[in-house]
């Protein structure tokens, strides 16, 4: 049973990661930096619960804020460039953050062992949940509490005036400017909210796996983050959830018996899904 709880946890965390890219994609921007905000949230909150012995809830809040702050700081210079240039700029930032954590040591002694991030070996023993007697089921519920919360907020946001503004920028920047939309403010806000969501996802990830390292935040993770909302479709937040279930639940876990052939089929099925449903697995209106 724990295997399924674990899978559901993973799906929850990846849904948040996908949603962090979803809101940025609505403005027409492709960011490969989401894995970096995810890493920052993971390391910051992990250090707070392990080294400073905070409770998970304030650590999660600070992790989210750290992700948001990093995204806002990246947003200003990065969003001055567009399209492929932005992809490269955010990729560079993402890799920079990963290399930072590859080299980052900050350990303190705790009883007989030393805890804290240790460069390439990663950050082990993020044991807030087991130390406080949380079962896998409890952790799963905790993660999904945030998934539901973030999805509900984004769903509401999407239907509000602000969501319309984001989509307007994504559809046509000149038209958006000519009705008086401040492009920089809109793009940086979307990036900041996306950074907060990625930071929260990173915190949840760090605490349920208990061990993180730089490789958990590589460009593949960043690619997954933008692939979910694209495969799922930008019509609704449910598309992102459907894509994560499809990719993680079906393609990665469901095809596990196929062994090494899985990865080949995995790529082919994503291509097939995007051809059969170019507007995403979920869509609101006809093609």
């Amino acid at each position, binding site marked *: 049973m724990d295997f399924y709880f674990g899978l559901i946890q993973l799906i929850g965390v990846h849904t948040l990661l996908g949603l962090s890219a979803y809101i940025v994609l609505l403005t027409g921007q492709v960011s490969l930096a989401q894995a970096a905000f995810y890493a920052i949230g993971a390391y910051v909150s992990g250090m707070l619960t392990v080294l400073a012995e905070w409770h998970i809830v304030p650590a999660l809040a600070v992790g989210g804020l750290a992700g948001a702050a990093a995204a806002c700081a990246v947003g200003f210079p990065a969003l001055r460039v567009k399209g492929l240039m932005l992809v490269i700029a955010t990729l560079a930032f993402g890799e920079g953050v990963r290399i930072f954590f590859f080299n980052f040591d900050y350990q303190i002694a705790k009883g007989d062992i030393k805890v804290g991030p240790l460069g390439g070996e990663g950050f082990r023993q993020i044991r807030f949940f087991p130390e406080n007697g949380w079962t896998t089921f409890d952790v799963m519920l905790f993660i999904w509490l945030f998934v539901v919360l973030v999805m509900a907020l984004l769903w509401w946001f999407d239907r509000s*005036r602000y969501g*319309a*503004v984001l*989509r*307007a920028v994504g*559809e*046509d920047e*000149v*038209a*958006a*400017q*000519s*009705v*008086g*939309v*401040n492009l920089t403010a809109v793009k940086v806000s979307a990036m900041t909210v996306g950074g907060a969501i990625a930071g929260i996802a990173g915190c949840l990830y760090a605490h349920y796996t208990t061990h993180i390292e730089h490789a958990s935040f590589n460009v593949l993770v960043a690619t997954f983050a933008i692939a979910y909302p694209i495969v799922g479709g930008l019509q609704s937040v449910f598309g992102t959830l459907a894509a994560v279930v499809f990719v993680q639940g079906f393609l990665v876990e469901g095809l596990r018996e196929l062994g090494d052939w899985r990865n080949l089929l995995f790529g082919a099925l994503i291509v097939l899904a995007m051809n059969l449903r170019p507007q995403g697995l979920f869509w609101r*209106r006809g093609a």
Partner: protein
Amino acid sequence: MSAMLEVRDLVTAYGKIEALRGVSLEVQAGSITCLLGPNGAGKTTLMMTIAGILRPRAGSVRFAGREIARRPPHEIVGAGVALVPENRLVFPGMSVRENLYAGAYLRRDGEIEADLERLFERFPRLRERAGQDAGTLSGGEQQMLAVARSLMSRPKLLLMDEPSLGLAPLVVEEIFRIVADLHRDGTTIFLVEQNAHMALRVAHHFYLIEQGRITFSGDPGSLAEDEVIRRAYLGSARR
């Protein structure tokens, strides 16, 4: 009449290429002023610069006595200048109604619904299609939507960039009827056109722009129409 818009020695460049090489012109309050010129003369660049979407390298743009050059576009819209961009640029994936609300983006007053209703009265076709995606409208309907969207910001000055572009002659007639109606209701209009014949029928004053410079200014009738048309399409440079 006083000048609502005063452009002085405006220079806008794309890299090293100067698209506007010192443009000066005026738009009188309550007038329809038209800018004619061949492709590549700088008409759209001028409109985008006045709207703040492009930043000028030099020169000034004064609107109602206030300098607006180099201000961001949202401030310029807020000051009362609305651009109907070339090629209409409606939001294709948003409904007609959502496009209209987008036009009222900067407004915080309580009369948005009433204005929407008035626009639906003026453009009954838009009411019929209110829930439809703007991308599914015909070219003429999209142009009406783009005009209606910009009116939702309650502009004092409406900049229209080639509203007749790519439209059938009957639809062009309709668009120019709308221009005349808007003017009658008190909106000052600065219009870029290639359709010199139609433009000269509604304009009070016109300018010719060629290769980034104003080469003629006058009232319709001050230059023979065939000469205007020749220069508007071909430019005056003899090759």
